[in-house]
Structures are given as structure tokens and as C-alpha cells.
């Protein structure tokens, strides 16, 4: 799902810094991706869970969109803090608690000014650390972490190599997508899904799929319209 990305022409005329408005656009796109795919996410969740992950992601998308539209948040930190708080008030079980922790963790490392790739890597790493504090799930456990960890690592690698923002986010989206794909070969060991054990083999983890959609949306915000294939509908 949402995983056959075809990357192409980066957004024309973009700068090498991400403004608050850019960040809001990234999250709006991510929210739109979750909204568009929420039924498929529920379907994926029905393999191992009770088939309502898409409902939680729809509510998450609504909150993130509301945060993006709120003009009172004028800095990356203010926007991420507001988004995190809103997502933490969603009744979405483990997935929204972890996404809320992720956003709040990102806010902790974000500042008042626009983000360069180095800062982008730092806030994503901070978000990832916040998730790791709340769950013992690590890559290979068939959770959202399987998409998140490689995406964050890709952002760091791109930042180190001095890649432009659009390329950085494309690499992150590709890594998240591959990470979500990799969960097909895994047996669930965390969360509600672990009770299904071997039955989860061959199916993408719903949490990893939604995380990949999030990064897909971030990337879309810096890609010329119509250049990306959502795939897997």
C-alpha cells in the first residue's frame, strides 16, 4: 500500500530550509495520505488487530490538519507541540499514543527558526527517541518502528551528505516504504498483533504502513504535483 513511489522532479524554486509553512504543508500532505488510505489501513489491521487502525489514523489526520490550519502556531516547535498534544488526545490506542509521543519528541528538539537538513535530522531523531522511551519494540518486531527507524536513519544520512531537502525526504519516504514492506516477512512480537504470531506472516504491519504513508506525505510536499504514484490502491 502506498509503496510504489516513483520519485522525480524536485519542487522547483524551493530553498534549502523548511519554514513553518513548509512543515505544515508536509503534515497536511501526510494527513491527506492517511485519510485517503484509512480503509486499507483498517483492512491491514484486521489481520492481526481488530481492524480499526484506519479509524485511529483518520482521527489523527483530522487533528494534524487542524493543527496545520491553526495560524497561531508560528514556529516549528509551536506547530509540532500543538500537533503532538492534539494527537495525544485521540482515542487511538497504542498507535496514536506513539504518534503523539513522536510529535511531542520532535517538538522537544525543534526551535523557533526554519529547519535545515541537519536540524530536520535532529528533530526526527528526537521524535524517534521519544517513541523508543514508550515502547520496547525495535526494528524487526513488526511495528511502526520498522518504517520509522530506517526513515530517520535516511534523513540523517542525507543530512550528512549535504543532500537538498527534497532529496532527503524522498530518501526517507523510500526507506520508510521499504521498512513497511519488510514487515511482511516478520512475525509480530509487540502490541496486540503479537497474539496472532505466525498468522501475521505475509502481511504488512498496519502501524508500519501508516508510518510509511506519513513519510510519503512529507515527501509529496516537496514534489511537483502528479509526479508520484501512490501505488497499491
Amino acid at each position: 500500500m502506498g509503496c510504489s513511489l516513483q520519485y522525480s522532479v524536485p519542487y522547483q524554486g524551493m530553498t534549502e530550509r523548511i519554514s513553518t509553512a513548509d512543515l505544515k504543508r508536509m503534515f497536511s500532505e501526510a494527513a491527506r495520505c492517511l485519510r485517503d488510505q484509512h480503509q486499507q489501513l483498517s483492512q491491514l489491521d484486521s489481520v492481526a488487530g481488530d481492524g480499526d487502525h484506519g479509524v485511529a489514523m483518520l482521527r489523527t489526520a483530522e487533528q494534524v490538519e487542524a493543527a496545520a490550519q491553526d495560524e497561531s502556531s508560528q514556529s516549528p516547535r509551536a506547530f509540532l507541540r500543538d500537533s503532538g498534544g492534539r494527537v495525544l488526545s485521540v482515542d487511538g490506542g497504542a498507535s496514536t499514543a506513539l504518534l503523539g509521543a513522536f510529535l511531542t519528541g520532535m517538538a522537544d528538539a525543534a526551535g523557533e527558526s526554519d529547519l535545515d537538513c541537519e536540524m530536520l535530522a535532529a528533530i526526527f531523531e528526537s521524535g524517534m527517541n521519544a517513541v523508543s522511551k514508550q515502547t520496547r519494540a525495535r526494528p524487526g518486531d513488526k511495528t511502526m518502528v520498522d518504517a520509522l527507524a530506517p526513515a530517520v536513519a535516511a534523513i540523517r544520512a542525507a543530512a550528512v551528505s549535504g543532500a537538498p531537502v527534497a532529496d532527503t525526504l524522498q530518501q526517507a519516504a523510500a526507506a520508510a516504504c521499504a521498512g513497511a514492506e519488510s514487515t511482511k516477512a516478520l512475525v509480530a512480537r509487540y502490541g496486540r498483533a503479537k497474539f496472532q504470531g505466525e498468522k501475521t506472516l505475509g502481511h504488512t504491519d498496519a502501524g508500519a504502513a501508516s508510518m510509511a504513508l506519513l513519510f510519503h506525505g512529507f515527501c509529496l510536499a516537496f514534489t511537483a504535483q502528479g509526479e508520484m504514484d501512490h501505488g497499491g490502491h
Partner: protein
Amino acid sequence: MRMKKFINEPGRIVPELLEGLALAFPDKICVFGGSIVARAKAKSADRVRLVTLGGSGHEPGLSGFVGEGMLDYSVAGDIFAAPGALKVVEALRMACGGGAKALLVVLNHPGDVLSSNIAMEAARREGLAVKMVLTHEDISGGPNLEDRRGLVGFLPVYKVAGAAAEQGASLDECLEIAERMQRNMRTLAVAVRTATHPSTGNLIFELGEDEMEIGMGQHGEAGTGRMQLKSADETATTMLEMLLDDLPASAGEKLLVLVNGAGATTLMELLIVFRRVAQILRDKGIDLARSAVGEFITTQEQAGFQLMIARLDEELLRLWDAPCNTPFLIRV
């Protein structure tokens, strides 16, 4: 097959059910902010407040046990989904109003635990006096306690900790009593028919016409294996043996036994199951000191039941017998 439920808008199920609960028991409970169920009359601030949280769609659990002698606050989440951490923080703030202390009772399910942990961190940062107890008594999770889910055992935990709090026990004493109750109880569930998720209209799991599954979780999480449907006596015998293997009870020991219907299993069946459990305990010389048969936590029209046994010492027995007055458990 189209979902056959008396609901209005799927997105309005939780607020409407809580509104109904409050209107049905106005002398006992009220609802704050659309998701926090509280006692109609708060107990005094020198008494420890009991708070819990959990997804909806499992009525009467959990909010149906808010009231004198049991819970003070219950944070209701969306259908089958833990409430957001910030709602739990809000309930802890209310519980700690006037300098009171609070015990958060959490059933071991990933979402509930995550929301609780985040809420507990925030509450501590605010300087609130809160402690947390986790119930995890479902033996189908295996030997590792962290893998054991919290099932109907929440009921005796609310009951004994709530009674202790009502009688003026300190926060540490309430915590100790709750933990002692939780250490001494074991539950096993069986499912024979699936339920419809009221938000999505989809079946939450699939089970063959002539199959049953022992160890099934509250949301249809798979258990220890499917088998041919068996009689009440055979099922009760198998399940009780598994429970007694995990929680040895010697002759003369006092046991509390709960048989909890999953939603679509009739009271007739639950009583037939209970009868067999009582026979076996009598044959073993174990004292069936207290029992309860009925629906305390359900999963829509899922068919099946949970069988819980718990060892009671004199203090736990006394607290189990103490009065309470909640929408769905009354003891005078």
C-alpha cells in the same frame, strides 16, 4: 452481512452511550467532557481516588463500575481503543483535586498501558500524588507476566481497592491491596462466535461454525488454538484445570470464581458452566467462598465467556464483601 445494531451515527456511539449511562443512573454518575465518567457525588479529598481507563464497546465494563465503594473516575476511549493520554491526565487532575491522592488501575493492553505511562509521567511532572497498578491475569499470554492481558479480573481489583479507599486506606495500602488481588487471580477466556466492530461494521475475527478458541482476548486476539466445539462440562473442566495449574489452590483454600459472559452467551449457558466449576472445586475440597456469574465486560455480540479464579485471604474477602453502589454492581 450488514451490521445489525441499534446505533445512530457510527462516530457518535461513545458520546451517546455515555449520555445514556449518565441519564440512566443520575444519582450515581455523571460525565465530564464527553469521556470522563465520575461519581455524582465525589468522595472527600482525604480518601484515595480510584481511576481507570479503557476502550468502549465492552459495557458494562469499565465505566459501569464507577460509584461508591469502587471507582471514582473512568476514562472511556473510543470503541475498543484506549483513550488519549491527555484525557487520562485530565482525569488524574480531577481525581487529585483538593490534594487527594489517586490510584490508576490499568488493564494490560498495549494502548491502555502506553496512554497510562504517558499520563503518569505528565501527572508526576505536575506534582500529583498518583500510583499505578497493572492487571495482567490472562494465563493464555504464557509464563511472561507482561504478555498476560487484563481481563475480567479488573472487577475484584476495583472492588477490593475501592473498598479499602472508601474505608480510609492510604495510597500505598490501596496499591498493596490491588497488587495482592491481582497477583492472586487468573483468567482464561473462550470464544465461540465473533462480533461486529460497531465503528467499521466488520467482523473482528473469524471462527468456524463448529469451532471454539480458548485463550481468545477481549478484542478477538487469537489465543492458544482452535478446537472442535465442546460441551459446557468439557470446556469448563479444561479451562479450570489450566487455571489451577497456574494458580495452585490447596484443599480448604478460599476461592472467588467469576464467570463473565462475552455478550451473546446466555445466562443459561454461564450457569451451566458455573455448575461444573463448582462441582470440580467441591470434589477437590477447595472452598468456593464467593462467586459472581453475569456480564461484567463484554465484546458486543461475541459469544464465549471468561472464567476467573482468585485466592482470597481474610482481608480480601472482607473487602470483596464491603458495600458498593455502582450502576452495575450493588452490594448493601
